[in-house]
């Protein structure tokens, strides 16, 4: 893909007059992010914040980071906005083609594998952390995580993005196997709110999606409706 360069890829450092052009006009767009997905019996709940940043400027405060890959498969994107959008477009195409060839709904594991193949092969050039979630008739609701570097593993709960560091404790202590759909929604919304409160690169609204045999239902929780934990 991209050839190896002998010197830093950020070519704008060669011309460093900064008064006229502030930092964020030259920085890459990143989905700072907190993303999360939880399996439950019958499907998955996926959630993400909605902030895209270029340096210190919020380029998009209502981003939709839950990207549909197929009818009952979504992915949460974190890392470089350009890289994850390009990867998601490519995988959507490949999965759609594969599904037409098979004439049946694709497996969530297939989607995750396609992500893994691309993220691992181009690991030097890409910065993408992706969580794939969906429902298929063979194995029900599944969550696969493909972090930076290109590993792929199935997990009942997965968090990702810069804000995830702040909520590992909350997730580990509050997750119980066998939660219902409503409990998972409350759990996800709570975790994302906590992360958005503490992480500067995460914020905006909470976007949730529930994937099950019936299809995908999406909801948005606006900033003033987020669950409150602290009274200070």
């Amino acid at each position, binding site marked *: 893909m991209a050839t190896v*360069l002998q*010197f830093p890829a950020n070519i704008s450092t060669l011309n460093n007059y900064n*008064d006229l052009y502030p930092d964020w006009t030259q920085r890459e767009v990143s989905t700072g992010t907190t993303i999360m997905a939880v399996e439950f019996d019958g499907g998955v709940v996926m959630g993400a914040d909605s902030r895209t940043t270029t340096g210190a400027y919020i380029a998009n405060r209502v981003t939709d980071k839950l990207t549909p890959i197929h009818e009952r498969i979504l992915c949460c994107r974190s890392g470089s906005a*350009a890289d994850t959008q390009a990867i998601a477009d490519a995988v959507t195409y490949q999965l759609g083609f594969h599904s037409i060839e098979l004439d049946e709904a694709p497996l969530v594991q297939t989607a995750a594998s396609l992500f893994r193949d691309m993220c691992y092969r181009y690991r030097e050039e890409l910065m993408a952390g992706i969580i794939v979630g969906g429902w298929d008739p063979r194995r029900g609701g599944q969550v696969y995580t493909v972090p930076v570097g290109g590993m792929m593993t199935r997990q009942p709960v997965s968090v990702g993005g810069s804000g995830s560091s702040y909520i590992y404790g909350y997730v580990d202590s509050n997750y119980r196997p066998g939660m219902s759909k409503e409990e998972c929604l409350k759990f996800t919304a709570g975790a994302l709110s906590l992360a958005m409160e503490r992480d500067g690169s995460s914020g905006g609204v909470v976007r949730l999606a529930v994937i099950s045999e019936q299809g995908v239902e999406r909801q948005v929780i606006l900033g003033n409706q987020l669950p409150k934990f602290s009274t200070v």
Partner: protein
Amino acid sequence: MATVSVCQYHRGGFSFENCKRNALLEADINKLGLSSPAARKTGTTICGLVYKDGVVLGADTRATEGMVVADKNCSKIHYISPNVYCCGAGTAADTEMTTQIISSNLELHSLSTGRPPRVATANRMLKQMLFRYQGYIGAALVLGGVDCNGPHLYSIYPHGSTDKLPYVTMGSGSLAAMAVFEDRYRPNMEEEEAKRLVRDAIAAGIFNDLGSGSNIDLCVITKGKVDYLRPHDMANKKGVRTGNYRYKHGTTGVLTKTVTPLNLEVVEESVQTMDTS
């Protein structure tokens, strides 16, 4: 040095051969306290919004080369197709050429499909090209238009990420323009209000950002019609000088006049022909 008799065919894409040399030159120049010349950028404020009947795109008209204004009235709203226009910020050459390439490809695509082009198609073509060049093409674009699915507005970043939003701003003056939008934008505005809002947003960029200036260009795209208003508002007309440094003959009084003839003789005369063809 090079004794190549046949011209070497330049393969397409970027050539990074001179980068190491340039880095060394840059270091040497910096040691002398100077800086190397910069690419001409459109400092820029560009913005767009979706209103009731379509989209309104706006742009300032200043192109800068470092701290000097290279063009006081450049056109930053580029034609993509009859129903799709694109504002460009970043490196002037990159935005110009990128939009021309995609415009050309989109016309061929439209002839091939037999349908008028869609904004989403232009968006996809632009983002895939910019991603392929990994951010080296410094083009930050605001793409807007009306197609069979209604009005659409996209912001496209140099690395290839895009956002589909009801209002967007780009360029060095984007923060000033976004402040105006965030304050006064409402969905489904009327055309006059929408034009006023875009004009005010660009004006905010022009007056508060050093990289933007001169006039405000607008482009109003609706289902059947495109209004390319250049200039829509000349916000910075050059003033008329009130004073003059020419003095009339006789202003300075002459007190004395002495004439001293210099007797010169011609020593040598030579003719040098000049080619004035």
